[in-house]
């Protein structure tokens, strides 16, 4: 579930408020959005993909809250790690690195 909106990184563009399919965030005037309905988070990671400053962190656990610390996440390279991996090709970027067509199942 979503665990972090980094106050330091957030530029209050409210993109996450728009793209979250489950309407988990609430926009706040002149401040970063708040995680208003965390229990509704479906752990789909879409908010991270759309965050331009890697200010969000979705923990992998779907049922249990995870305690996170921003500095530890940054040190482990996890803040923004999903966007960095190449999923979601930026507009105008070179080709997708999708190699699915090469997979041959063993059975």
């Amino acid at each position: 579930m979503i665990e972090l909106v980094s106050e330091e990184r957030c530029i209050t563009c409210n993109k996450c408020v728009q793209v979250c399919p489950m309407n988990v965030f609430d926009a706040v005037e002149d401040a970063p959005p708040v995680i208003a309905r965390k229990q509704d988070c479906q752990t789909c990671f879409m908010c991270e993909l759309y965050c331009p400053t890697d200010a969000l962190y979705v923990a992998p656990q779907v049922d249990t809250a995870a305690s996170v610390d921003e500095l530890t996440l940054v040190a482990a390279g996890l803040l923004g790690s999903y966007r960095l991996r190449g999923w979601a090709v930026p507009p105008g970027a070179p080709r997708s690195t999708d190699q699915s067509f090469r997979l041959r199942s063993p059975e």
Partner: protein
Amino acid sequence: MSVTRLREAVSSSAAGVEHDADVLVIGGGPAGAWAATSAASQGGKVVLVDKGCCGTSGATASAGTGVWYVPPDPARRLAAIESREKLGGYLQDRAWMQRVLDRTYESVNLLAAWGYPFPHDDDGSERRTNLWGPDYMRLMRRRVRKAGVTIMDHSPALELLTDAAGVVAGARGIRRQHGDDWIVNARAVVVATGGCAFQSGGLGCNVLTGDGYLMAAEVGAELSGMEFSNAYAICPSFASVTKTRFYSWATFTYQDETQIPGAGSHHGRSVLARTLAAQPVYCRLDKADEATQAIMRASQPNFFVPFDRAGIDPFRQRFPVTLRLEGTVRGTGGLRLTDETCATSVAGLYAAGDAATRELICGGFTGGGSHNSAWAMSSGYWAGAAAADYARQAGPTRARRDLRVAGGVALAASNTAEFDPAQITRAVQAEVLPYQINYFRTAEGLTASLDRLDWLWAALRAAGPSAAEHVVKARESAAMAATARFMYRSALARNETRGMHKREDHPRQDAAQRHHLVSSGLDEIHVRVQPASARAPQEIAA
């Protein structure tokens, strides 16, 4: 009463929005996006509403998917058609499979022309058989906007509108980030709300609660194949990322690290279900060599996010797995289509994607996503075009005073009993998630479950309108209850094992039951037999 309630609904919306449209598309996943662009290309006014956000909502946006993209070579096309007929229980329609292959080929080539960055193979030619959901759906949103469609995000539809004759004439809902209402008076409506996965926690699927089935059933629409609704996906038990294909490379073990005999991702999935009913199951993707591991990482970055963040190397370390119900998202049941335009059994109402039955191309079984994505882009394209056609012939939109709202449960002001959506959802999940009831079906288990679900439905019908802040969840929980009842009534009427529908008490396929089961109604659910298409493949004895 319903006319009065519409007036009240309209007058109570302080700063709501109202649109007159030729076509209203409900749902902004791939099927809805294709429907909207296709309808708009005919020149009329099109409005698309999404419960979440067009571009990120639904099962496709957060996942990677194959596409049933087969070049128009007759031998390859025939092989593609024949390869799944047995699996699907010979309930497909060959003419539909052929036209979906044709349409998918055209649509995927359009995606390439629109700039989707398909990967190259070693010869430098494009491979167009896979799509990354985030990129695909971001592109589709751009195309929908470019086509001049009005998109309303975070605008869940609550109920359909009809005229006095029962012809569908739009819908109404709320704008949850504005705290007001919307009404769209439309000459035709496309339901593209996806399937129902019962909020089981599968990737991107919690938005898919069967809303379109409920809304359509409230205006009298029929469903088909709802017994084919017990697809379960393999998933780390702590996480959301369902990618069953990658478990082809898995070894499944008990707690004590001994291997589970017969367990596997394809034929051995029932062994997993039986084991999970009693004890935890672990796995390791140790059959993937280094080259395969690299391909997997490059192809499905999202698969590895939960592992990387939990500090697990899935190729070397064991992790616990579970099976998450994907219901009719991967199952093939949905609204019955009456002809090649994707019309439903109700005038003015069309259906596309997982909201519509996929039996036409898959019969009673879907293995991978490739048929599902092909179905979404094809049925969406046809439904949008046909809805626009219908709108052109339907004349002016009706005056609002002539319209009525069709919704009942959680909306009608007939009673005041409490309505707790979370409690209803848990009660429905207790009937549909357990493998003992839904994976391994028996007349006894289904009947007992239906008794409880019918009682639950009666309680919902007696409850009053939900407060505005809960109304979306109330309708979702009611839609899941309705979906479960369509599923189990149909499952009880199919006294055999066919496709994904497994009856422990009827373990064989019965050639005399090679037909469709059509369900309808709400308080009383009726199931009737519809003969298989004349263009269905011949059933070959197992």
